[in-house]
């Protein structure tokens, strides 16, 4: 009887484990699930509820949100689709449409609809959007399947294969748009437009989470073999064979250490080092410092607003030596602005970076200035850097339109370098300056910090910027070695007490 009850408890205990197991497997299942046959009539109902807002009622990519999205939503009337498995110039297969709706187009406004609508509905919509272009009907009359790219046996990654891929990358001039480092910073980048004359940016190979058609090896293989229709990205199939394609895949993969976007930490912990903090980016002290990743988003708060992000994220490191504190920033920007104006980017400003703190150390650090450039009640102190003077000044900000330079602020030593699609900036200042008008930085005290960034070549100026909300910064002191001694003493002490106890026990 008792054992029976116990068994019941055991089963109860095990159920969640089993359930957890099956959940885990579901999450890992690849997207290659069967596509149910679609019904265009029902697809129209779903389309007019969910899709019209971006793609428009007539499928021309002109819904209410269209002007505020970049890349713009697809215009279905032309029958030109970016993400396909079909040969260059051909229509997408039904499966291609299903997958694009299901997975979304990463790094764009197109979400993964499988999160919220059923496979049946996705399939129905796929059928309906085909009706926007006559090309699909015309092709259907031929009664032939759409020809697709064949993917041959895989060449696994190796240093030799990556090197071969690099040679192909250089020979086919991929770098002219994508940049030698793969950061979308090639010399042709500022002239790139799609077939609808809208600006378009090449893929940044160091951020695979933004690859529109996915970042699996086979996705990359297909992309340069099928081309991205409607954009300057042509098909390179005629210059490649299966083996060369895999070399190129291996090279592109080698440009990014991770496929997943790095995680975001709430606290930047700045470690103490001995001696001067180097102003050299390559210095081993900087290379070994912890790197923090912060995503940015458009400045939606104050007109004129920024609807799409031009600088997606910024990486930060920090070091201090008890006297000076230095911050190292690194972010991707395809151009060193301003550049010569092009037809696509006629307005040119400088690049800029804003490191925001409260102007002065607040008595309660949990009460902060407004993250968009401070407010009337609490001023922000902004370390403002821009690419024309290459200098950093301190701004007192009580809102984006109430900002002025603090004249007698302690100088912020700055070094900035632009190389192939990336800005790197080091800012260094005394922790304690003795100037009451500015922030005094102390070890162990938490400070709010946030970031704004601008790409001047993409029209960012004034309120047009990419922003982050508040995070924390703390300078940590070097930890003394007394903790090892304490651990040792405690160990011996407890052991001694145990001996006394055991002897007492065996005596009694």
């Amino acid at each position: 009887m008792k054992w029976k009850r116990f068994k019941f408890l055991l089963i109860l205990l095990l159920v969640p484990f089993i359930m957890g197991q099956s959940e885990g497997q579901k999450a890992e299942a690849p997207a290659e699930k069967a596509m149910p046959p679609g019904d265009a009539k029902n697809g129209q109902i779903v389309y007019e509820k969910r899709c019209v807002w971006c793609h428009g009622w007539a499928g021309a990519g002109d819904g209410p949100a269209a002007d505020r999205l970049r890349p713009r939503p697809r215009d279905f009337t032309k029958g030109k689709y970016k993400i396909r498995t079909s040969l260059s110039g051909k229509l997408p297969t039904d499966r291609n449409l299903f997958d694009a709706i299901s997975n979304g187009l990463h790094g764009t406004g197109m979400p993964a609809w499988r999160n919220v609508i059923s496979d049946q509905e996705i399939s129905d919509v796929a059928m309906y959007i085909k009706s926007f272009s006559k090309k699909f009907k015309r092709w259907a009359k031929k009664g032939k399947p759409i020809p697709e790219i064949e993917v041959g046996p895989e060449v696994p990654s190796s240093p030799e294969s990556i090197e071969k891929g690099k040679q192909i990358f250089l020979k086919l001039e991929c770098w002219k748009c994508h940049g030698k480092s793969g950061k979308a910073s090639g010399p042709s980048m500022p002239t790139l437009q799609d077939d609808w004359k809208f600006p378009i940016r090449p893929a940044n190979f160091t951020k695979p989470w933004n690859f529109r058609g996915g970042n699996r090896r086979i996705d990359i293989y297909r992309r340069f073999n099928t081309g991205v229709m409607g954009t300057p990205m042509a098909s390179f199939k005629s210059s490649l064979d299966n083996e060369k394609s895999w070399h190129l895949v291996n090279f592109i993969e080698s440009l990014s250490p991770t496929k997943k976007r790095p995680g975001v930490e709430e606290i930047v912990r700045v470690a103490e080092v001995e001696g001067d903090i180097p102003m050299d980016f390559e210095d081993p002290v900087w290379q070994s410092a912890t790197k923090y990743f912060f995503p940015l988003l458009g400045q939606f708060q104050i007109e004129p607003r920024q609807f799409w992000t031009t600088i997606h994220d910024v990486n930060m490191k920090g070091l201090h030596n008890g006297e000076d504190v230095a911050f190292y920033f690194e972010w991707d920007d395809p151009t060193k602005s301003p550049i010569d104006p092009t037809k696509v980017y006629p307005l040119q400003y400088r690049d800029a970076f804003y490191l925001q703190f409260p102007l002065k150390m607040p008595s309660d650090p949990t009460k902060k200035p407004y993250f968009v450039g401070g407010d009337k009640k609490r001023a922000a102190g902004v370390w403002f850097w821009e690419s024309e003077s290459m200098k950093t000044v301190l701004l007192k900000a009580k809102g984006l339109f109430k900002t002025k330079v603090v004249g007698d602020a302690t100088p912020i030593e700055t070094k900035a370098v632009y190389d192939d699609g990336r800005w790197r900036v080091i800012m260094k200042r005394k922790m304690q300056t003795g100037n009451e008008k500015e922030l005094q930085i102390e070890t162990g005290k938490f400070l709010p910090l946030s970031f704004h960034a601008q790409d001047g070549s993409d029209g960012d100026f004034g309120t047009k910027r990419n922003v982050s909300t508040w995070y924390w910064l703390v300078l940590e002191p070097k930890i003394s070695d007394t903790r090892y001694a304490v651990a040792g003493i405690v160990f011996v002490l407890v052991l001694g007490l145990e001996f006394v106890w055991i002897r007492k026990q065996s005596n009694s």
Partner: protein
Amino acid sequence: MKLNSFVKGILVTVGLYAALIVLFGAVTLFGMVEVNINGILFEESSSNILPSSIQYMYIFFIFVGVVLYYTSSAEKIEETIRPMANFVFNPEKKASIKVGQYTMYSVLPFFFAFVGYNQMTPKFPEPIALRVIHPAPPTTIKIFGEPHNLVSLENPYRQYEKSDPEEFKQLALEGGFIYFKNCFFCHGDFLDGRGMTSLNLNPVPANFQDVGTIAMLQEAFLFWRIGTGGPGLPDESWPWQSAMPIWQNILTQQEVWKVILFLYDYTPPQITPRTFS
């Protein structure tokens, strides 16, 4: 098999919690699913019924209940404590208990040494500040340059829902245009708070599909929250941190009311504005 009440207490605690998990299908501790927001993948609990904070609260109550039960009478206390006393003093000189004792003797010094080491390592925890997610609205507030009484304020377009459904449909559609020109970047195509910027924000954008957000609120509350945005929040709700713009600076009063119509119209039918009548 005879179980003493100490072991029973532990089993009952774990068992009750497990039963709860089974009952609500809440597998927070075990099941994680990968979510994809515009290519950015992250893991989240596969449970959408019970948030983990509530589950931890339940686990706490169950634990307290079990402790109370097993300490409710002198015999129960005695019965619960006996196995512990047996282990420490080993009156019957059992060999199996001896093995257990010496294992403990060898582990304890390491444990306390670690505690000492840990105590001596300075830690810098984030300053604790609790954010009030649903602040009490002020009764009167100045929005769009005029004072409004939030208790009596009503959506001027709500009446058309019954009197003129065609007109109502048109107004909700206009609200949709406004939503997809301004709001969906954060609050998402599905109004589920999972727009393309949502992962870059803390606090995360509100999920209107959730029965715990707009379905619990009056339209006037939404009017206040939209009109004055993040900076219109009281200090305990972190006005400096919310990315919600001050929409009265960007939209008109009519546009705000239309977008509120849209929010309730586009979400499932059970999500309706709360009224006091």
